[in-house]
């Protein structure tokens, strides 16, 4: 850091590496393409289990590209990658537990209503 009174010299600009810039735009293109595929699916397919599975897989793929390339996590040390990714196991557990719980409540309410109607 420059001290007071000392004349500050502008650091030299390093020229851009076209390969690096190209890679950034390529990742952007992949993300746009995945979103476009989601759109095509939304307008051409029936909304059922298959479509929802496709959506979730494409979303995870997008998340991978954003984290690995844009957030640079793919180029960090393995220990850093794991300390970010391993805690996310709790989210996976949360999804499974909560959705199972909700389905069971749904079944219970539906059964009760069917009983009332009879």
């Amino acid at each position, binding site marked *: 850091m420059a001290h007071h009174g000392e004349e500050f010299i502008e650091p030299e600009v390093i020229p851009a590496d076209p390969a690096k810039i190209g890679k950034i735009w390529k990742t*952007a293109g992949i993300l746009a393409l995945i979103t476009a595929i989601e759109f095509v699916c939304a307008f051409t397919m029936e909304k059922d289990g298959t479509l929802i599975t496709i959506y979730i897989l494409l979303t995870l793929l997008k998340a991978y590209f954003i984290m690995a390339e844009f957030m640079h996590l793919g180029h960090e040390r393995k220990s850093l990658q794991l300390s970010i990714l391993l805690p996310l196991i709790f989210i996976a557990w949360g999804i499974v537990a909560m959705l199972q719980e909700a389905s069971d409540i749904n079944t219970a309410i539906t059964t009760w209503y069917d009983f009332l109607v009879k």
Partner: protein
Amino acid sequence: MATGAIENEKDIWKGGEGNLPMNASYGKLMMWFFLVSDAFTFSGFLIAYGYARFKHVASSYHGIEWPNPDDVFNAFPAMDVFHVDKAPLVFVGIMTFILILSSVTMVLAVEAGQRMDKAAVEKWMLWTILGGITFLGCQAWEWMHFIHGHGEGTWIGGELVKGANLVQNQYGPPLFGDYFFFITGFHGTHVLSGIIINIIIFYRVATGLYQRRGHYEMIEKVGLYWHFVDLVWVFVFTFFYLV
């Protein structure tokens, strides 16, 4: 760079100098850990949404089904001019593209910062800020449309409901509206704070602070935050608008 030995204890807190745990600076590590905690908050919201949706039984709530997002978010500004009745997903699709593009300009700002190219950092930061503001504007329009409602409205429990708020919703159960407001609102707040932070950083780039400091690591840190906002939107888009 990391040498293992810490010559001066104060070096640990310098960020980018001295000892580097996991070969990342203090600032970047802390940003990562903050983002992990924020990811848990957003997951909590989205899982709660899934919970409400899985549990919903129409017959227990005036026979109201959980809405199909295609029927709720199908408006576009100036649709009447083009004589289009429904445009499901189109507007939110454009919003998604805007946010992805602003993420790209952020990566380009980070890349320029690593080359000490002040002019390029300024340019790409401005594009990022512009993208963020455009996204927020779109979201404001979307909220306005959702709150005012469209069509004739719906009769719920002997009352004509038009639009949505926290207690009433013409499209489906009020819970749907509540989760829409909370999840997109919480995300929008993140975008807003991201824009404010980006403006502050842009000002400090323009006044040459990082040039004097000798590195543009601050751009990388706000970049991480900005990409995270984009990442969350990818999930909100899927689970709120597609599924």
